[in-house]
């Protein structure tokens, strides 16, 4: 019975593939509604809130393909979000702020000056925008059960994964002590201030403390994280989670060497001739030191035989997927650091570490 249904379904889907070939059914349905894809996780932005001057909070309604591929995320994990900016797809990891089991995904994105995706979203995100979603990941997660006191520390938009943890604990009707410490420039820039106040009011076991680096008078905590702040929490935490700028993570680690941490640091571009980086050919599991020449010649020097053609950047025979890292086009000099992008390896030289599907 089951196999019968399955065969029928397979038969139906292969007929559909034949009829919609060679493009595939998604390439037709997405023209009716861009979230109607079977093979690609996508989401529609159903809510946009600009609660602080330098951030935007998006509510995403993921399509079935995404929900089928990701039955549930764990509090603290991130998702890769793909946005098209000026015709170019850009993928960035963003921590999910919603609690475990929520149907919608909430992201709060802080403006990173000099960046591409975050300023775009902060300024231009609107309801109806469709974004790509894939690979939920991250080890910065809450355990299934916990009883001992928990300390959650965050700075700026690093609040999102710990917000997810707090929301999850709240949904679980968690009874243990939780102290939530958040640092922002000012009260105005502190994300989720109202919701945190509400949570603290409703849950006697939860304490929320704010530190405003530019408004010491309005702060619960003065200055940077240190032993005095630990004392102010009034708990001996068993679990410590910190997400924010590297300096904050370091300061927390100094007090709690076992603290779990997450910190997204944007890539630093140094467009120079010889980069001193490492190249990882991910398909063949080979790593070499960059010698400054295009990836194609370095791959060949490493004993690989990638498909190639003109070796002058016109035929695109050698185009490969760059998983991560920055490359410089040796003809135009243009540097590109987009993750998950196709590059012509014959004219792309590494700028720092590069991971390429070869």
């Amino acid at each position, binding site marked *: 019975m089951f196999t019968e249904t399955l065969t029928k379904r397979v038969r139906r889907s292969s*007929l559909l593939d*034949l*009829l919609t*070939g*060679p*493009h595939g059914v998604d*390439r*037709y349905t997405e*023209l009716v509604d861009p979230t109607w894809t079977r093979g690609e996780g996508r989401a529609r932005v159903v809510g946009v809130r600009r609660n602080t001057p330098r951030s935007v909070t998006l509510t995403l309604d993921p399509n079935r393909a995404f929900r089928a591929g990701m039955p549930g995320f764990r509090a603290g994990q991130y998702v890769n979000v793909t946005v*098209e900016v*000026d*015709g*170019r*797809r*850009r993928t960035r990891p963003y921590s999910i702020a919603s609690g475990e089991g929520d149907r919608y995904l909430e992201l709060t994105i802080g403006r990173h000056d000099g960046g591409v995706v975050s300023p775009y979203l902060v300024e231009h995100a609107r309801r109806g925008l469709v974004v790509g979603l894939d690979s939920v990941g991250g080890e910065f997660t809450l355990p299934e059960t916990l009883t001992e006191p928990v300390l959650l520390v965050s700075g700026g938009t690093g609040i999102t994964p710990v917000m997810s943890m707090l929301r999850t604990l709240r949904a679980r009707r968690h009874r243990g002590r939780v102290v939530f410490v958040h640092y922002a420039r000012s009260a105005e820039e502190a994300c989720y201030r109202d919701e945190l106040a509400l949570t603290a009011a409703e849950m006697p076991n939860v304490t929320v403390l704010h530190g405003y680096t530019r408004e010491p008078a309005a702060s619960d905590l003065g200055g940077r994280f240190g032993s005095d702040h630990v004392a102010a929490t009034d708990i001996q935490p068993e679990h410590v989670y910190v997400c924010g700028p590297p300096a904050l993570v370091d300061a927390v680690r100094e007090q709690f060497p076992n603290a779990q941490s997450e910190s997204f640091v944007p890539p630093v571009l140094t467009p120079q*001739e*010889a980069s001193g980086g490492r190249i990882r050919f991910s398909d063949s599991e080979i790593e070499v030191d960059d*010698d*400054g*020449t*295009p990836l194609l*010649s370095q791959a*060949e*020097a490493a004993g690989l*035989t990638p*498909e190639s*053609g*003109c*070796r*002058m*950047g*016109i*035929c*695109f*025979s050698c*185009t490969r997927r760059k998983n991560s890292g920055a490359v410089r086009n*040796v*003809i*135009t000099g*243009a540097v590109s650091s*987009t993750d*998950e*992008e*196709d590059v*012509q390896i*014959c*004219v792309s*030289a590494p700028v720092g570490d590069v991971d390429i599907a070869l």
Partner: protein
Amino acid sequence: MTDTLTTTDETPTDDTPTVETATTQPGPAQTISKTVAGKTVTLTPEQAEAFGRELDELKERVIADLGERDATYIRRMIKAQRSLEVGGRALLFGGIFPPFWLAGTAMLGLSKIIDNMEIGHNVMHGQYDWMGDPAISSRGFEWDTACPADQWRHSHNYMHHTYTNIVGLDRDVGYGILRMSADQKWKPYYLGNPLWAFLLMVLFQYGVALHEMESEKIASGEISIKDKREILSGIWDKTKRQTLKDYVAFPLLAGPFAPWVFTGNLTANLIRNVWSYMIIFCGHFPEDVQEFTIEETKAESRGQWYFRQILGSANLTGGKLFHILSGNLSFQIEHHLFPDIPAHRHAEISESVREICGRYGIPYNTGPLPRQFATVVRKIVRLALPWT
């Protein structure tokens, strides 16, 4: 796809991180000259360098400007094509009613033309790879025709675009079955030149599909059919699916109306075949388009490579719709100079290209389709004769 060409031993393998490693290696500087329509065109190495630089700059200006406009353009084109396809196929289900059959066939034919020309050919050139959308990327795209995309990328993007019009290297000079250059030695088989050309036109999608088989090399014993087993299986898989789709699955779905769907699909494929054949043959075969010898092009600089692309290509004049339906191959010259920039940009830069060519005294071959195609037909017939 590991064909090695003994004649291209200049493959750069040294490790100097300079721009030159990625371009054709400059050989000893030589003045090049060609006689076009009785006039000799000469380019000194210095002129060639300056000429190449001007074209490079033109390209960089376009590359720097790529963005949302181009993304919107190609997505609109895709939407138009898919809508024509769905609409055309739907109308053909009612094809027993003649106006439906005619409209459905025309729409499906147009859809296939746009899919192959303005979308497929151009996307597979990597013109939209900068967008990072796998559905519009050179490696990911597959088109609605018998030829498998990966084989096309090798024979067309690499062989034809790198070795354009070099007799003996560019298999698009006659496609291994026609005599399209006087430099191809005559043999009795070529008496059938006009007939072979006509058959190729009608069956164009299969001709294109079989291109990578290099059947002429199999016939001459240079290679064995065994060497081409993988290629053949790729062609077979793709052709099988295309045939099943157009000639079995869709007609069967129409039940009693199968004959109308079948003939509609057949006619739509024929329309696409004839149209793309005409456009493509007008790219490199009209009168005064130059061929080159391997010897002539052995030590080409980038500027000289541009020179060959221009003298080896011809444009077509026409309106906006004509350019779209030709996949902007009506700007064959611009396409051959910059095969990787979105083709809808070619019209915008053609004036500049023409102006640059004018200053260096390089002829720019262009004309309306009927005139250009007439010279192609004349060439096909003339070269059938032994004394040509």
